[in-house]
């Protein structure tokens, strides 16, 4: 097996090889650092690479494992985190010029938990500025899709998805407010999981909107996501919103069979204008596979789903400007144009509209929960098409332009992921095929509160039938 083959192995296989002494954490870390050096500049996936620290951590992991002290399945496994999560002594920018020299004085809880589990931190990953998107001018370069560098990665966890797809790390962490893990995962052909809101601590993570923000893993397989989530999940005294719900052995639920599982296929996630023929066909193919594994598949409707596009901005923007206010007053010009104008919209929105949006959120949530009383998971396309071409947004000067961009027929970004976010449900995107241009397509699976196990079970069962993985050839 070549070094490049090892780089693309799932976490579950790497950890088995490490356990058997067939793969060294130092060797694996060196492979990724070499690949980052080779491809990093073209893809702009990383912001900061911690080569020396990573090699030191890998040597320590190797020594501990050799002496019989194996901390977890993640021990010796290289990972990277969205440049949104604090790392002690490391520059963490939020993808913003305004924090270009900000060095964190502590680890975010999720970073600390992964280090404690023995995982090897390679560095920080590129992101849309402060996780809002779309960023007009990326201070650390525009992230590019490994499947085609002229296509977008999606956002805001752009580097997190690109790095896993390109074989620059085994897994990554991203942040998801209304789809920022699942969208990039779909466009880049990796698994991206947002757990139940409150399942994973947000301590030490730059916020966007506190009642929606989630941290989660991007991985090569659902089993890998299960292994990482097991380490991340659980109450954190530093995050009072984190849940005390017991953390199950997610990987143990991945049996490959779907007997007794009922899947609701969401019509609003499968039809125009939000979903194209290729994305629909790919998901329908996956559903046939799931049916063959014993799942009952039936159609369901979420008529309020499209209304979510009117709800998220009045919820998110006022919340975000509350966090950014001190920095905006101090260094407004250091923010990207797209970020700062949207934050100012949040500052000017009437408070009554935010309250109205919160109530509308309840009606959307109630609709989703009622449908979930009759099915175990909700499935649909994770995005309406393969990754679109990179585009560089320009100034909006009229209300009509803004209405078209926010609510018009072409405003499909986020449609497939927002309802699960508004309801706080666990959800993931799993690759389910390719379009005619060879770009990945994703299937979205959402479940009941704290039922990540069934969400992962469905994705894993599908993956088992899919055979060997296909990864991009990077020039």
């Amino acid at each position, binding site marked *: 097996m070549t070094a490049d083959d090892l780089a693309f192995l799932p976490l579950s296989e790497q950890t088995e090889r490490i356990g058997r002494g067939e793969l060294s954490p130092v060797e694996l870390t060196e492979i990724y650092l070499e690949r980052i050096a080779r491809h990093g500049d073209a893809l702009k996936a990383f912001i900061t690479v911690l080569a020396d620290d990573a090699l030191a951590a890998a040597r320590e992991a190797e020594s501990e494992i050799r002496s019989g002290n194996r901390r977890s399945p993640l021990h010796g496994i290289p990972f990277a985190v969205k440049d949104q999560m604090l790392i002690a002594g490391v520059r963490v920018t939020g993808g913003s010029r305004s924090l270009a020299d900000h060095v964190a004085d502590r680890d975010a809880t999720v970073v600390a938990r992964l280090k404690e589990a023995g995982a090897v931190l390679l560095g920080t990953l590129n992101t849309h500025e402060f996780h809002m998107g779309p960023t007009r001018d990326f201070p650390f370069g525009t992230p590019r899709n490994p499947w085609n560098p002229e296509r977008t990665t999606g956002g805001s966890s752009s580097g997190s998805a690109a790095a896993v797809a390109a074989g620059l790390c085994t897994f990554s962490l991203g942040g998801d407010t209304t789809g920022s893990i699942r969208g990039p995962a779909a466009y880049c052909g990796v698994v991206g999981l947002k757990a139940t*809101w*409150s399942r994973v601590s947000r301590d030490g993570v730059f916020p966007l909107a506190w*009642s929606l923000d989630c941290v989660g893993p991007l991985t090569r397989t659902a089993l890998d996501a299960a292994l990482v989530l097991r380490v991340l999940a659980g109450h954190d005294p530093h995050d009072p*919103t984190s*849940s005390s719900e017991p953390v199950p052995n997610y990987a143990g639920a991945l049996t490959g069979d779907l007997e007794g599982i009922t899947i609701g296929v969401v019509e609003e996630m499968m039809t125009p204008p939000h979903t194209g023929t290729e994305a629909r066909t790919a998901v329908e193919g996956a559903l046939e596979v799931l049916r063959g594994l014993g799942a009952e598949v039936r159609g369901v409707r979420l008529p*309020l789903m499209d*209304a979510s*596009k*009117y*709800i998220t*901005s*009045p919820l998110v923007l006022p919340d975000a400007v509350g966090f950014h206010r001190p920095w*905006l*007053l101090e260094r*407004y010009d250091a923010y990207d*144009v797209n970020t*700062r*104008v*949207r934050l*100012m*919209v949040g*500052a*000017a*929105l*009437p408070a009554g*509209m935010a309250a*109205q*949006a*919160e*109530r*509308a*959120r*309840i*009606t*959307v*949530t*109630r609709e989703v*929960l009622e449908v979930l009383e009759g099915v175990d998971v909700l499935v649909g396309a994770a995005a309406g098409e393969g990754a679109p071409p990179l585009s560089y947004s320009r*100034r*909006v*000067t*009229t*209300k009509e*332009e*803004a*209405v078209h*961009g*926010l*609510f018009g027929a072409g405003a499909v970004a986020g449609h497939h992921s927002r309802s699960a976010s*508004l*309801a*706080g449900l666990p959800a993931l995107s799993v690759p389910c095929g390719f379009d005619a241009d060879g770009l990945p397509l994703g299937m979205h699976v959402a479940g*009941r*509160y*704290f*039922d990540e196990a069934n969400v992962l079970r469905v994705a894993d069962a599908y993956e088992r039938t899919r055979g060997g993985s296909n990864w991009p050839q990077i020039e």
Partner: protein
Amino acid sequence: MQDVTAEQVERILAAQGYAVPEEDLVEITARLNAQLEGSAALDRTAAAEAEPWHALFPFGATRDR
């Protein structure tokens, strides 16, 4: 519904201490008016009839699993 003007938006922002350049103000005003137009769509979700409980389960008796 009536749109807000750039001058009105500038005053609202200035009252909070924000001084934004003219080019930004045009875009902020356009985007704000678009959002305000979207509030009519929120009405169609019957938001006013929603019970005033928080959507997120750790904060009340609405936890539903």
